[in-house]
Structure formats: C-alpha cells, structure tokens
C-alpha cells in the first residue's frame, strides 16, 4: 500500500478516484440547482434537505477532503512534471499530438479553485453561518446573486472552464484506473465530452435564466 501511494501510478489513481468523486458531487449539485426552475418551494425544500440530512452532513467533510487531496496531488504532479524536462525546446508543436484541455489541466483546475473559493464565500458561508445573508429564504439569496451581471459572467466562465477540465478529465480518470480498453475508448471519450457539455450548459443556463429572464 505504501509502495502504491509513493509511486507515480498510485498517485494518479488517487487523482482519478477523487476526480470520480467530484464528478458524482457535480451531478448531485446540478440536480439540486435545477430545482430552482420549479420555483422557490422546490428549491428551498431541496436546500433544507441538504442542510439537515445526516448523510449529507458527513459527506460534506468527505467532499472537502476529496477536493483538498485532488488539489494537493494535482499541484504536486504538475510541479514534478514541469521540472522533468530541463532545457526547453526551441520549436515545439504540442497541438500536433494532444488536446488543449489535456495540456492545461492545472490552469483550468486553478481557475475552478478560485471560483470555488468565491462561490463558498457567497453561497455556502452565507447560508450556513450568516443567516442567509439577510434574505428570508435560500431561494431569494441565490436568485438575488444572479441579478449581479458581473457575478453571472464569472459563474458562466468558471463552468465553461470546468467543462474543459472535464472534457479531458473524465476519460483520463478511466485510463488512470486501468479501466480503458480500445473497445470502449471512443465511447468513454464521447461520454466525457457529453458530460462536460451537460455540466457547463446546465449550471450556466440556471445563472443566465435568473440573470436575464426571471
């Protein structure tokens, strides 16, 4: 086990498992957010459930640990990888052989992290510790935030970048855990891209709807 975690492959597997875990979290989170379309009652009820259910309360800490592990390992891998080349090439054509998303995981990851901090401050902390930031219900707080166009713009950009992160990350996690076979390769790749679009469009649509239409 210790040999596993100290090896390059072992750390990649942990990276992939935390990635899968974060993907599951995203699906649940999107589900909750979509209830906004069903009006204040549905969303407040879902929000209430998330705030009081025992399993969810425990999962919050697991989720935080998953994020921290994913981030620490991601940064560590990146630093090691950057130092393994030495002298740089005078001419290099990485776009001939690999995708933009696969080469910029750390960039998309760090921007998502910055957004996450802002997001936690505006929603999570307000709802949990500051009595809904002065609003009477969770629904009011959330929809009011989207009335700020700057906030909505940041929100949409962050989710597009998360989509780019996932368009490589989804299939990459299968490869890292050894679950990729040539037979399923195309299928996994396409599912990953479809999922990334779902996440980017799903979250953005909610923000844009409450910003411009509702």
């Amino acid at each position: 086990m210790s040999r596993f975690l100290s090896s390059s492959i072992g750390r990649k597997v942990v990276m992939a498992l935390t990635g899968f875990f974060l993907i599951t979290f995203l699906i649940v989170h999107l589900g909750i957010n979509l209830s906004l379309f069903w009006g204040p009652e549905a969303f407040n009820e879902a929000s209430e459930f998330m705030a009081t259910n025992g399993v969810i309360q425990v999962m919050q800490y697991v989720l935080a640990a998953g994020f921290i592990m994913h981030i620490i390992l991601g940064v560590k891998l990146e630093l090691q990888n950057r130092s393994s080349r030495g002298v740089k090439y005078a001419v290099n054509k990485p776009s001939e052989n690999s995708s933009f998303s696969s080469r910029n995981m750390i960039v998309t990851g760090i921007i998502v992290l910055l957004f996450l901090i802002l997001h936690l401050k505006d929603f999570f902390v307000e709802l949990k510790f500051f009595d809904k930031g002065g609003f009477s219900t969770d629904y009011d707080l959330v929809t009011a935030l989207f009335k700020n166009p700057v906030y909505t713009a940041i929100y949409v950009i962050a989710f597009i970048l998360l989509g780019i992160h996932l368009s490589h990350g989804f299939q990459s996690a299968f490869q890292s855990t050894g679950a990729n076979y040539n037979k399923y390769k195309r299928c996994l790749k396409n599912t990953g891209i479809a999922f990334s679009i779902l996440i980017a469009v799903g979250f953005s649509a909610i923000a844009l709807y409450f910003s411009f239409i509702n």
Partner: protein
Amino acid sequence: MDFTLKIWRQEDANAQGSMKEYKVTDIDSDTSFLETLDVLNQQLVEKNEDVISFDNDCREGVCGTCSLYINGEAHGPKKLVTTCQLYMRSFKDGQTIYIEPFRAKSFPIVKDLVVDRSAFDRIQQSGGYTSFDTGGAVDANAILIPKEDAADAFDAAECIGCGACVATCKNSSAMLYVSAKVSQFAYLPQGRVEATERVMNMVNQMDAEGFGNCTNTGACEVECPKGISLENIARLNREFLKATLVPK
C-alpha cells in the same frame, strides 16, 4: 532542394549549448534525413570544423538508435516513421528546419544531438525479461496462447526503445515505453510467472530515473514511430494496481 538547418550544438554534457545555422544545397528529394546530415558533416570535415554528432545505427527503423526533435516533433513531421526513415521530400524546398536533441532531464545530452538513454536500459534490466532454464527445445505448441493475446504481445513488442514518447510528452513521462515492455509479457503464460515483481520493479525504476508523471495527454501514441497504443498504459496501470493492492 536547398535547406537552412538550425541545429543544436553542445560541446559536452556540461557545456552551454545553442542553436547554430547551416546551409545545405542541391539535396535530392529522395535523400534521407540522416544522409542530409552526412552531407553537411562532409562539408564541415572539408572546412576542418567539428562535425555534428547524432545517433544512428540500422538506418531502417528497427534499432531505435536514431532520435532528433525535428521542427517541433519527435522523428519529424511524418507519423509512424523513425528519423532514419524520413526523406527530404517531406519538407518544402528552401524550408528552415530546426533540429534538436530529445529533451528530458533523464536523457542527459552527451554531445550535440546525442543523448544518453541508458535510463531505459536500467528500467529494462530491473524487470523486462523472463527467466528460463535452458535444456532441450520444448514443443512449440506445448503451451497454447489465444490469438488475441499473442497479437497484443506482438504489438507491444514492436517498441524499439527510441524514447520519442519521453521527448514528446509535456511531462517527459516514460509510461508508453514501460507499458510496452510490461505488456509484451503480461498476457503470455511465460510472462505471468514474474509479472508481479516485473511491474513493481520497472515502475519503481522509472520513478527513480526522474521521468515525469503521465497525465494521459496521448501525445506519445501519436508520435511513436511504432504506433504503440495507449491501451498498453491502461494495462500497465491495471498490472500495477494488481501487484500492489491484491495480497498474494
């Protein structure tokens, strides 16, 4: 055809290197890339200058000795060929061609375009073999092997150890190479005997040599002259998971 060549010159391992410009003229389009370097070296000899060092041996794409990062790609712009199988017809007349050594901290430069790839040898020595007792020849069909497994093993065994995968990878990862060397034995009954130690030792040696971590960009597969598939890396990951996590 005429070309401007910008070539990495470096006196020895510790010297500071730089790109130097050379011209070659009247090159036939069917001249190979290495022959063009031979022509240039002949000119340098005649001018009493230090010739450009580059690795080569078989010049037919089987030994894995030739290297070179040509215009930003390992083994040049053509896919599925080594540098020795590259011909000047793949370039445009008058084109400027950048020629650099394969770069990775684990492949230190010896001189000019020659790099020391003995890190690969040490990985191979740590487990890339099967142990046999010698004796009378065994009947060839004594151990039956499914066609698909034999084909997978053969595909993996095509790796010539050139190091293009490392040179290309943004992380200088050696995973494609190691995965080919593990995979060529992984599904053969003869290879199963030492499978656990093989994958542990080879991955440990790979990490110890300072190669980067694989992030599945897939650049190696595209630039590999032998078309070694990424599926081998997934197989290596499975073999390593099995070896480290499943109790014996």
